């Protein structure tokens, strides 16, 4: 492809570049962000992104709310895999207060987080296929996202913005219906995923479209602080689950897929393989699930059961204090990170001993790696730029917070 030649050509003809506004409302930008592209025909010379069209001031909002009321805000960051954000926030607070979480809670959390990861990667991969023109995958695989939503509903009551679990564990143990639904998902999903994979993985058209589209080298990716599937597609095997294991991930056996050239095909295949590995982890977690309580002993944060509230004075006082948000938290600063759907999702929490955080900074992976987008698309065609954007899985809620 003579991409670079067109830019370096020394012609005497006077050139006029067109400016194209890939505006905030555009069917191909899956989310609200704008790019003003300067183009020479079909080739992009310069790109200038503008974000902030859905800035909702999460960090300022968090300074106003008691700790458990911040969970619904974290939902709305990466809304395609909301449970991961919720559980990451709960783990941050548990680190701050020094809570000891039982093994059963950790395994249940792993199951939920891996289901959320599958849910996130399903959207990204099917949307990459849609952008190349293959709509079938989207329509068929969204049925399985409905199954995942049903599992969330059984556990916490909500489909998308789940607000799942509590500081200290889960509100209720998984009942039989939830286990039946999880088993049904694990039984039916592999076949559908294999079908989708066979449609696109070795498909000549898909491979021609995606191989070489929007590449990035490992050095540039590290300099831009990439993380998650985008970094692994570039060749660096950095996964928070393996490097800083949390919530008993060290008990599970899974491989981390790593790509070679960091282009769209590699990102697609890394996410695809991660879905298979997630199913493996869920299977292991179900098989090795220990018995035990579904919550930790943190009475200051975990609502007591209703029978105790009506019979026991202490439980009544705890219930009142928690609901009114009057619990004081120890002073300190803590950073906790998990492997979100897009990379290292971190919460940096400073508490000054009051009932709300003094400062909560969210390390959002989408925000950090989207700044490399102009560099990745300079010199490519506009159709490759669209594919690059959808393969980077930029979610507007996480971008702007």
């Amino acid at each position, binding site marked *: 492809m003579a991409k670079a030649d067109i830019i370096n050509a020394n012609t005497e003809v006077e050139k006029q570049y067109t400016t194209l506004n890939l505006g905030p409302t555009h069917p191909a930008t899956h989310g609200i962000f704008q790019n003003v592209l300067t183009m020479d025909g079909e080739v992009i010379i310069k790109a200038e992104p503008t974000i902030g069209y859905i800035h909702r001031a999460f960090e300022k909002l968090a300074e106003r709310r008691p700790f458990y009321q911040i969970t619904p805000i974290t939902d709305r960051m990466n809304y395609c895999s909301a449970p991961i954000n919720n559980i990451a926030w709960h783990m941050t607070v548990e680190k701050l207060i020094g809570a000891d979480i039982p093994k059963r809670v950790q395994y249940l959390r792993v199951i939920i987080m891996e289901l959320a990861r599958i849910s996130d990667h399903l959207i990204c991969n099917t949307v990459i296929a849609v952008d190349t023109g293959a709509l079938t995958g989207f329509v068929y695989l969204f049925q399985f996202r409905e199954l995942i939503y049903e599992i969330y509903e059984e556990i916490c009551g909500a489909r998308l913005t789940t607000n799942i679990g509590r500081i200290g564990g889960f509100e209720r143990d998984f009942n039989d219906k939830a286990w039946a639904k999880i088993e049904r998902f694990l039984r039916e999903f592999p076949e559908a995923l294999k079908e989708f994979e066979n449609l696109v993985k070795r498909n000549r058209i898909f491979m021609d479209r995606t191989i070489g589209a929007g590449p990035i080298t490992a050095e540039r990716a*590290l*300099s831009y602080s990439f993380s998650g599937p985008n970094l692994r597609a570039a060749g660096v095997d950095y996964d928070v689950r393996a490097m800083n294991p949390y919530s008993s991930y060290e008990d599970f056996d899974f491989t981390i897929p790593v790509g070679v050239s960091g282009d769209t095909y590699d990102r697609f295949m890394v996410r695809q393989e991660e879905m298979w590995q997630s199913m493996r982890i869920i299977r292991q977690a179900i098989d090795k699930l220990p018995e035990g309580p579904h919550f930790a002993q943190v009475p200051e944060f975990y609502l007591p059961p209703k029978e105790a509230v009506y019979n026991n004075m202490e439980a009544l006082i705890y219930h009142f204090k928690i609901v009114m948000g009057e619990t004081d938290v120890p002073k*300190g600063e803590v950073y906790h990170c998990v492997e979100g759907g897009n990379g290292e999702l971190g919460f940096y929490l400073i508490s000054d001993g009051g009932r709300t955080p003094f400062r909560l900074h969210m390390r959002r992976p989408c925000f950090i790696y989207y700044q490399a987008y102009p560099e990745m698309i300079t010199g490519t065609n506009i159709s490759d730029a669209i594919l690059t954007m959808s393969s980077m899985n930029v979610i507007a809620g996480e971008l702007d917070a």
Partner: protein
Amino acid sequence: MDSTIQEKIIGILRDKFESEILSVESPYNFLTFNLRQEKIIQIIEFLYTNPQARFQYLTTLCGIHYPEQKQIAIMYQLHSLTNNWRIRLKIFLPEENPVTPTLTTVFAGANWMERETYDFFGVRFTGHPDLRRILNVEDMIIFPMRKEYPLEDQTREDKKDFMFGR
């Protein structure tokens, strides 16, 4: 991170930049250095190139406003992927005129992180290629994350008095 590794990292930094360290602490086992503002970029470059330390990944950088001490702190969090060490560096800038050099010469990813810190706290990063607001509207004059500004928009009308019978 156990204490031998922490001692090692403190030793590496103390060797060259003893005078810049204000204090060292380790809340929740996470090594944190409070440093002077003047040579922060040299310190980070040193940590980047030092063959024992190799802190070549910038996890995040953010601003923190301490209204009582009238300071705005900048927190840099670095990660050494080869050794799996994480450290935190903090510098303190005066509230009226927070100025510090940019980190984009070392890490390309610091570009938008610094723009976000400028947008929220008003910290000027000298040498930044494109320092302007990123998340808020372009013509905003205040720096909203500072503690003196309220969360809500004071001119909003959604709690209409007649709907509440007032």
